[in-house]
């Protein structure tokens, strides 16, 4: 089976490199009250990804919604090791970015977070494997292709 490899530019919000299967949604994600940090599962009943586990995945969503306590939920996930491998957004969300920043200081584990253009955001889909390198400002996307 072929794998198509593409490289896209990304802007760093928080440092680090992370790789995993893409979990993609066009709807904003609520962390405080919408995510269970103990299991790394989305519990927002109104969200299409409700019930999905984010741990170890590359979470692709436009921006964070809801309470500013969302950054604390991310810190708690990093503390428990249930956090995603990386997060890719369209809009920069400093309040959410504070989560990985502080988690790095507290637990020495990085959770890279980047923003991309809407066009790049639209390219990613379920089943892609993404390697997010926030430090170098790029995302490598591996897509399973059909044999030629």
């Amino acid at each position, binding site marked *: 089976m072929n794998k198509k490899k593409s490289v896209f530019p990304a802007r760093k919000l928080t440092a680090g490199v992370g790789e995993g299967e893409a979990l993609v949604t066009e709807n904003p994600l609520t962390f405080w009250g919408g995510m269970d940090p103990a299991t790394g599962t989305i519990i927002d009943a109104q969200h299409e990804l409700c019930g999905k586990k984010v741990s170890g995945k590359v979470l692709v969503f436009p921006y964070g919604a809801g309470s500013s*306590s969302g950054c604390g939920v991310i810190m708690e996930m990093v503390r428990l090791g249930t956090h995603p491998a990386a997060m890719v957004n369209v809009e920069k969300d400093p309040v959410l970015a504070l989560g990985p920043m502080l988690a790095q200081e507290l637990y020495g584990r990085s959770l890279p977070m980047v923003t991309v253009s809407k066009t790049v955001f639209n390219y990613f889909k379920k089943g892609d494997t993404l390697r997010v390198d926030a430090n170098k400002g790029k995302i490598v996307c591996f897509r399973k292709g059909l044999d030629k």
Partner: protein
Amino acid sequence: MKLTLEEKAMLSGRKGEAIAFGMKIITQLGELYGAEELIPISQVHVDGCCYQTAGDAGLDFAEKLARMGAKVVVPTTTNVSGRDIQRWRRFRIPESLSEKSRRMEKAYLSMGVIPTWTCAPYLSGPLPRFGEQIVWAESNAIAYINSVVGARTHRYGDYIDVCAAITGRAPRFGLHLSENRRGEVLVTLAGFGRELSTDTSLYGLLGYLLGRLLGNRIPVVEGVPLNVTADCLKALSAAGAASGSLAMFHVVGVTPEAPTVKQALGGRKPKERIRVTPRQLKEIKAELHTARGDRVDVIALGCPHFSYSEAWGFLQAMAGRRVKKGVECFIYTNRAIWGDLVATGLARGLERTGVRVATDTCILHWPLARWGFKTLATNSGKYAKYAPSLLGLDVAYGDIAKCAEAAVTGRMT
């Protein structure tokens, strides 16, 4: 980001580990916000000191800073704790939770915060003046202090507030700057009669509607009576910041940056005009008032924390009657107001009605459904929003007088 020599020294660690930590976070975040420099700030209100919200990671954060020897460099007040610090046993708070709360309180106290433990720091001191640059977290307090007092804070959240308190700095951006504080949407109240002066429950509904319609855009509201009370503006702030991201609003002729519509809009044309009619507020009420029948079994007042005048109004509405057997009525306030109530004898009056007053904390962290309660009566749009999801309760919404009737009769009509 351009830093002064002193700020560079702070960042480098020459002024201590904790200040360097705070400076690193403030500058990183400031860059994300697009700020080019920092400004000195003169006061902080810290959120995130409630264990139930912040969790173990929040406790790790506070204790790590405390171990580093962090000290606040400006007067810093604290938001609610997870418990009534003196009377937690009386309110059935589990020992384990109380212990985690105690550790959280201890970590912050070691940094030199003022132990106000209140979500309404604007009801007691220290108060910033008009135009003062501050860093406040807790959404209702941000909306109130920006709009009603005219002190300047951006919409801050947990942790950055602490970093600001130990460095005395904030990024120069957002609502710190005049050009970002001007009104964007002109909201006209139309078709109202005397009720805007008599029915205080309308302001929670109005706030809720504004948050819902505007997100984080700044409204200029015209048509509010000039004698509107601070309590009503408190209700508006809390509901708007809960249903949306209201961090600043203008009320023409009432709030200090809005002597006229023109000044509130900063001389520009509004980006949008909205008419608000009694019918729209009725629709919001229908949405918040989820109780089907008229029975209620718990009444909660003081979200944000009850003011002295609200306690006074409640006692007058009780008119010497007592809370009905089988019904609980909780009032939440802060210690400064409780002290005033004790001094004037109103506290004794409240206790005689059978009301239970808690200080330092918030009902949203109490497991009311597990205690067997089903329907909550409240005068707060913010409680009304969160009670179904966070507490698992149905809500009956009404003003303080209606809540007092509910306490006496177990019914709200």
